[in-house]
C-alpha cells in the first residue's frame, strides 16, 4: 500500500532503480512492508520511538531551553547495503584511515610530505586543529586516530564519495547500537532472512582497542566527558557503561608527579588510557585554552611523557579541517602508493585565487563551508540562500579565504522514509565508525542520517535530521 505511490522524482534512490524497479537487496523488505497494513507500520514506528524516549536516548540542543532533550527522530525503514558494496566501502575507509594516520604522524614528525611539496606548509600550520605542542610526539603504537566517523554520501550517479572525516570526537555510534536493538524488535522476521551483520560487539572492540594502547596487562581505562550538558552526553555514558569503565569528568581527574589519577572513594587511582570526548583545546587549561573548566590541568604533559594514552590523540583535529580533507587523495597516493578507493567530493579551496574567484561568482550553485565548522553550522547552500545571505557570505569568505571551501551541490541519494502516514523520499548520508587498534575495524553499517524536511540536504541532528538503521547483508 504505502509504496504504491512512491516517487523517486528522478533522484538516485537507495531502494528503487531509475526504471522504478526495486533493487535486489530490498526485495524482502518491500514485500514485508506491502504485506503490512498502513496502521501496522505506524504502530511499529510509535512503539520504536517510545522505547527510545523511555531509555532516555536523547541529545541536547544548545540554546533551546524549552526542549532541552529530544530523541533523535528515528525512521524505521532501514537502509540496506549489499555485502559486495560494503566490501568496497570497508576497504576504502581502511585505506583512508591508514593514510590519514601516516599524515598526522608525519606532520608532527619529519614533515616529509611538506618537504616533498605535496601539501604547502602554511595550509598545515594555519589549520585550527594543528597543535604545535604535538610536534615531536609519538603516541603509543604510533596510532593517532583511534576512532573515526567518516561521512559518506552517494551522489546523483549512485557513486559513493567521502564528504568529510571526523577525527576529533565523532559521535552517533550509540544511536547506531540502540537503533539496532529497536529494529530487532520492530522487524525481527527480516533479520534472519537478510542475515544482517551484527554490530553489538562494537563496545567490546572499542575496549579492546583502548586496552591495546597500554602495555599494562589490565590497564585502567576511562571515558572523559564534558558533562551532562554536552549534546552527546548520552553517548559518553552509554559507551562507558557498555565497556564497563568509569565515565569521568575533568574534576574527577588530577595530575600528580606526571601521572594521571582519578579521585575515588578510596583515594587516587592511576588512569592508563582515556577515551576523551572533549575537544583538544579544552582538554588542558595549562597548555591550551586557559578558560576551559572541562579539562584536566597538566594532562597534556602526562600524555607527552607517555604516562597516559589518549584516544583520539591530541592534534588529530588537523585532519578535520576541510581544506586538509581536500588533500587526502594525495596522502593516499603519497604514503601508500595507491589510488583512492572512495573519491572525495570535488572541492574548491578559497585560499587559491582562481578557486576564490569561481566561488564568489558561482556561490548560487555551491555549498560553501567553514573549514572547521561542524553540525551544519557556518555553511551556506547556494541554491536555497537569499541574495542577501549570499552577498554576506561572499564577504565572509573574502575576509578569510583560508577558512572556506566550496563544493558543488550534490544531489544526495534518497530513500523511502515514513513521513506522517506515508513513505516519501528523503536525502541521506552515512557515517560508518572505524576503530584503529591492533588492526583497523570498520563497523558493518553505521549511522544513516536522514534529512526529514522535504527537499532538505541537511541531515544533522542539531538541524532537525533523523536517523535510520543501516543493514549490511551477509
Amino acid at each position, binding site marked *: 500500500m504505502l509504496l504504491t505511490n512512491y516517487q523517486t522524482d528522478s533522484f538516485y534512490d537507495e531502494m528503487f532503480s531509475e526504471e522504478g524497479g526495486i533493487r535486489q537487496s530490498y526485495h524482502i523488505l518491500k514485500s514485508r512492508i506491502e504485506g503490512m497494513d498502513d496502521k501496522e507500520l505506524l504502530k511499529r514506528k510509535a512503539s520504536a520511538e517510545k522505547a527510545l*524516549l*523511555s*531509555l*532516555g536516548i536523547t541529545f541536547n540542543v544548545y540554546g533551546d531551553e524549552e526542549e532541552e532533550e529530544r530523541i533523535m527522530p528515528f525512521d524505521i525503514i532501514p537502509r540496506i547495503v549489499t555485502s559486495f558494496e560494503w566490501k568496497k566501502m570497508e576497504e576504502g575507509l581502511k585505506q583512508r584511515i591508514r593514510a590519514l594516520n601516516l599524515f598526522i604522524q608525519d606532520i608532527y614528525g619529519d614533515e616529509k610530505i611538506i618537504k616533498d611539496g605535496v601539501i604547502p606548509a602554511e595550509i598545515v600550520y594555519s589549520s585550527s586543529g594543528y597543535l604545535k605542542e604535538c610536534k615531536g610526539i609519538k603516541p603509543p603504537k604510533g596510532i593517532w586516530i583511534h576512532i573515526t566517523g567518516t561521512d559518506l554520501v552517494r551522489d546523483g550517479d549512485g557513486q559513493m564519495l567521502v564528504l568529510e572525516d571526523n577525527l576529533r570526537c565523532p559521535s552517533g555510534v550509540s544511536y547506531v547500537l540502540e537503533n539496532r536493538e529497536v529494529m530487532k524488535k520492530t522487524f525481527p522476521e527480516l533479520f534472519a532472512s537478510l542475515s544482517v551483520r551484527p554490530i553489538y560487539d562494537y563496545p567490546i572492540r572499542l575496549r579492546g582497542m583502548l586496552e591495546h594502547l597500554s602495555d599494562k596487562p589490565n590497564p585502567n581505562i576511562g571515558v572523559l566527558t564534558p*558533562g*551532562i550538558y554536552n549534546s552527546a*552526553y548520552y553517548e559518553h*555514558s*552509554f559507551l*562507558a*557503561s557498555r565497556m564497563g*569503565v*568509569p*565515565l*569521568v*569528568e575533568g*574534576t*574527577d581527574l588530577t595530575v600528580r608527579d606526571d601521572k594521571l589519577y*582519578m*579521585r*575515588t*572513594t578510596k*583515594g*587516587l587511582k592511576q588512569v592508563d588510557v582515556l577515551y576523551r570526548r572533549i575537544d583538544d583545546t579544552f582538554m588542558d587549561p595549562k597548555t591550551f585554552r586557559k578558560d576551559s573548566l572541562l579539562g584536566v590541568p597538566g594532562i597534556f604533559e602526562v600524555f607527552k611523557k607517555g604516562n597516559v594514552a589518549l584516544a583520539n590523540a591530541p592534534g588529530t583535529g588537523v585532519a578535520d579541517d576541510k581544506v586538509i580533507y581536500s588533500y587526502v587523495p594525495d596522502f593516499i597516493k603519497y604514503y601508500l602508493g595507491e589510488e583512492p578507493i572512495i573519491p572525495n567530493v570535488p572541492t574548491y579551496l578559497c585560499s587559491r585565487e582562481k578557486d576564490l574567484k569561481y566561488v564568489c561568482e558561482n556561490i548560487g550553485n555551491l555549498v560553501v563551508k567553514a573549514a572547521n565548522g561542524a553540525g551544519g553550522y557556518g555553511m551556506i547552500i547556494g541554491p536555497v540562500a537569499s541574495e542577501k545571505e549570499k552577498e554576506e557570505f561572499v564577504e565572509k569568505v573574502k575576509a578569510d579565504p583560508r577558512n572556506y571551501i566550496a563544493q558543488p551541490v550534490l544531489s544526495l541519494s534518497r530513500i523511502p522514509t515514513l513521513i506522517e502516514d506515508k513513505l516519501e523520499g528523503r536525502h541521506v548520508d552515512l557515517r560508518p565508525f572505524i576503530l584503529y587498534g591492533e588492526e583497523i575495524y570498520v563497523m558493518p553499517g553505521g549511522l544513516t542520517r536522514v534529512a526529514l524536511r522535504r527537499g532538505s540536504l541537511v541531515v544533522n541532528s542539531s538541524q532537525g535530521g533523523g536517523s535510520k538503521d543501516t543493514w549490511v547483508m551477509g
Partner: protein
Amino acid sequence: MLSRVAESVYWMNRYMERAENYSRFLDVNFQLSLDLNEDSNRQWMPLVYTTGDNELFSRKYNIPSKENVIHFMSLDIENPNSIMNCLIRARENARTVRENISTPMWEVINEFYLTIKSKRKFEESDMPGIAEFFKAIRNQCLLFYGCQEATISHDEVWHFALLGRLLERADKTTRILDMKYFILLPSREEVGSTLDLIQWLSLLKSASAHEMFNRFYTRITPKNIAEFLILDKIFPRAIRFCLSKTFDSLKILSGTDKDSYGDETEKRVGVLLSEMNYASIDEIFSSGMHEYLDQLQVRLNGIAAQLDETYFRN
C-alpha cells in the same frame, strides 16, 4: 568508585526519599483536613516548617492555604526541595551515573520524570484525584527502591545509595515528629478525644507506621509513638533503625572491624547509635522532647557533612 559517582548516587537517593516523604506528608495532611472542621489554614503551615523552607514560602505566598502549600511542596519550581525539583535533581544525578546503575532503575526514574514534568499547577478540578497523584508519586519512589535493591550489585554503589536514603529518612522522621509533637501537645484538654486520636494517627500515617505501630503497641499515646519512631530497632523509618543500618554500610565501606573505627563519620554514627541503644523514652521526655529532636537533627546533619568530607571531597 569515583567520588563524584558516590556523591551522585547518595544524592539521587536522598532526593527520591525526600520526594516520597513529601508526597506522604502532603497526602496525610490532605486527608486530615477532610476530617477536621476547623480553619484549615492553621494546619498547613506547620508542614512547611517541617521542611525548613518556611522563609521562602512566606516570601512567595500570602496565606498558607491548602492550595498554596500543596503547590509549594509539590510542583513549585522555585522551591529547591519541591517534589518536582527533587525529581529533576534525582534524575540529573541518575544521568551522571548511568553506567553505574541498571537500565530498569534509570527507566523508572526517567519515566517518573516524564509523567509529571508537564504538570505545572494544580487546578481545583485536580483535587478529587490528588490522593491518587500523591500515591502515584509514593509508588514510583518505592518502585525505584525496589528496582535498586533488586537490579544492582550490593557493592559500594549500593551502600552509598543506602546512606543517602537512610540519612534523609532519619532526618525527615525527626522533623515530622518534632512538628506534630509541637502542635499536638498543647491540645492537652482534648487528650483522648476523637480529634486528638485522629491527629496522632495522622502522625503515624505520615511515617507509614500505622499498622506496624499497632502490632507492637496497644495504646496510641505520644510516648508510645515517640518511642516507636525514635527508638525502634526494626521499623525501617525509626531513627535508631536508620542509624544502625547507616553504621553497617559505613563498616562495609571502610572495612574496619566492629571494635574500631576507620574515620570520623563512622565514629560519629557509632557514638550516636550507642547512646540511642541505651536511651529510654522516659529520659527523653523528661529532658525535653523538642530539645532532643533538635539535637538529633544537628547531629544527623553533622554526620552527613562528615560523610561528604570523608568520601566525596578527595
